[in-house]
């Protein structure tokens, strides 16, 4: 067990996978000489050379398609998209091609590839650099979408992603890169489609993923200390496949649920999770399910406006106070 940042966990995993399998290579904008916009790939060009760590020009559709084609011939590309906002330029290759090739050609050609990309706002980057678009990909059969919230999960799930035979969207978050956590030793992997109860509780369940799952855990611990509410936190970790069972079982126990997400409310990840809950635990609910999400505006630059648009701990605390059983208030 060692303490490290989320960034370090990603970096070390990429390095180990490059060492483990000759078919693994990295590509993306500025990942080599510049060592990555967020320095996840620092030092890797120096260690592995330009054959394994490939700097690409600025052409997301071109190089994501190139990675997909390389995967069709059995390589295992790990693509870095600088931020999730730029992935929009590659939608054709991801949705029309990477997600379709195995099915549409009758199972003849798997596409083993990973697309890593950070989402998230809060850095005054304004509307085109602050989005959370993971639900677009979670909607598509043929893709897998994972969104770990801790360094330990990032490590285990990135290993799984690289070794998976399908296109995997691996969602990171700008505000998670410096978060520290304990990371187990050894070559462990974490299967997709397994949510994790990161804190047990009795009074209500908060369901979340990626950075908001980390915020939810902090909030739950604080509230428990401050006023004795017992809050369960479920980090779904994987959006497609989605582990309905763990979510439903938790809500059956606590009878109250909040979905906490950084993306926009309408048609967001929470809408799907709420639907799964009502399908699986309708009779167990003591109150309508709440969704805490970002306000539905293109994210503004101005700091006060940005703060007003983003969701976070404050909004979650308010929702918990509204939803908590009366006896505990």
């Amino acid at each position: 067990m060692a303490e490290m940042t989320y960034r370090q966990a990603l970096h070390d995993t990429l390095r180990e996978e490059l060492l483990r399998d000759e078919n693994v290579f990295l590509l993306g904008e500025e990942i080599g000489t510049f060592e990555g916009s967020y320095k996840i790939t620092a030092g890797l060009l120096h260690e592995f050379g330009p054959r394994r760590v490939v700097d690409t020009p600025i052409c997301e559709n071109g190089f994501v398609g190139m990675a997909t084609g390389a995967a069709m011939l059995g390589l295992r590309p790990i693509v870095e998209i600088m931020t999730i906002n730029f992935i929009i330029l590659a939608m054709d290759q991801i949705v029309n091609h990477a997600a379709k090739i195995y099915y549409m050609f009758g199972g003849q050609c798997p596409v083993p590839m990973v697309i890593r990309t950070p989402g998230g706002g809060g850095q005054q980057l304004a509307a085109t650099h602050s989005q959370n678009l993971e639900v677009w990909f979670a909607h598509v059969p043929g893709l897998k979408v994972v969104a770990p919230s801790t360094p330990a999960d990032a490590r285990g799930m990135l290993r799984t992603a690289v070794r998976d035979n399908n296109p995997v969207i691996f969602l990171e978050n700008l505000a998670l890169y410096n978060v520290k956590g304990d990371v187990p030793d050894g070559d462990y992997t974490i299967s997709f489609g397994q949510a994790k109860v990161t804190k047990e509780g009795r009074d209500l369940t908060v369901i979340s993923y990626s950075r908001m799952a980390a915020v939810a855990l902090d909030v739950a611990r604080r509230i428990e200390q401050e006023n004795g509410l017992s809050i369960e936190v479920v980090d779904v970790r994987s959006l497609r496949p989605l582990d309905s069972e763990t979510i439903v079982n938790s809500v059956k126990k606590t009878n109250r649920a909040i979905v906490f997400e950084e993306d926009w409310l309408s048609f967001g990840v929470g809408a799907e999770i709420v639907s799964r809950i009502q399908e699986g635990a309708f009779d167990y609910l003591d109150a309508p399910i709440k969704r805490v999400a970002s306000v539905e505006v293109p994210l503004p630059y101005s700091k006060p406006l940005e703060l007003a648009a983003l969701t976070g701990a404050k909004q979650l605390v308010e929702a918990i106070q509204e939803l908590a059983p009366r006896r505990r208030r």
Partner: protein
Amino acid sequence: MDITRKQQAAAQAPIPEGEDRETLLRYYHDMLLIRRFEEKAGEMYTRAKIGGYCHLNLGEEATIIGFCEGLEPDDYVYTNYREHGYAIGRGILPGAVMAELFGKETGASRGRGGSMHLFDINRHFMGGYAIVGGQVPLATGAAFALAYRDAHEIVACQMGEGTTNGGAFFESLNLAKIYHLPIVYFVVNNQYGMGLRVEQGSAVAEIYRKACAFDMESWRVDGTDVLAVRDIMRQAAKLARERHEPSLVEAVSFRFRGHSVVDPDRYRDQEQVKAGREAHDPITAFAARLQAASLVDEQGLQQIEQQVDSEVEQAVQFADQSPDPPLDTLFNYIYASAETESASTEGGE
């Protein structure tokens, strides 16, 4: 276009010295097979045996066989959605192609893809693609993988001239050049998008000239002359194989019918189309050249014709008698399992 006069000249040129008779007759057979297959596909479409969209290769037979014959058997081929002929030319059985058009389990893509998505991993036929330009980055990536492994094979990526106005084309050619990838981009310029003339859609109507933006070699060739297309493809393939340099070939061809089976082709002058079919028919022109060189007589041509008719009939029978995919396989192939062999082991390095 002034290629017209050149085309007529080439189509009438004598067969060059040193060509092998059996090989030439095979080219003729293969072109005729595509012609008859496509005519039959059109017929089957109107009889509702085939659904969806259906784009025929009629008039492009010399372009296709020239393309296929310029490559080695293990080379990788990516195409667009007008690809029945390419699939047949690369060795997929006509029955498996027709069965795919019929949506059958025995089809090249197990009935999941249809006319626009033919695939055969064993023949390195890496797919027909129906999003214009979609195959170009993919083919570039396949070439990247071959370069990564220092393999002997190359990639050939077919597309229509309309593709060369989109971003995927430009991004891919740039990537291929900076990484020195073993790939030939093969542009079939049949002079129309669907109904949009090449001059209306492309600032540079001579498509091969676009390659200069990437300091890439390129050629323009008469797509109705199977030998000319084959020879240019060999040259381009050699450049890719021996020097890892990408290049571009533009084959100018003539589309006999509308964009797809259901297109009545009203935007073209039908007198001109009719004249064009006669002037640019690559098959009758090649037959005339073979006869002029005394390589085949009328009876020999008839024998080939009969053989082809029988092959197409068998393909239709096979497709007709094949089963639909079972309903309980609807969810098969969405995700590859951990045990799925990828192309690296399956295809052999």
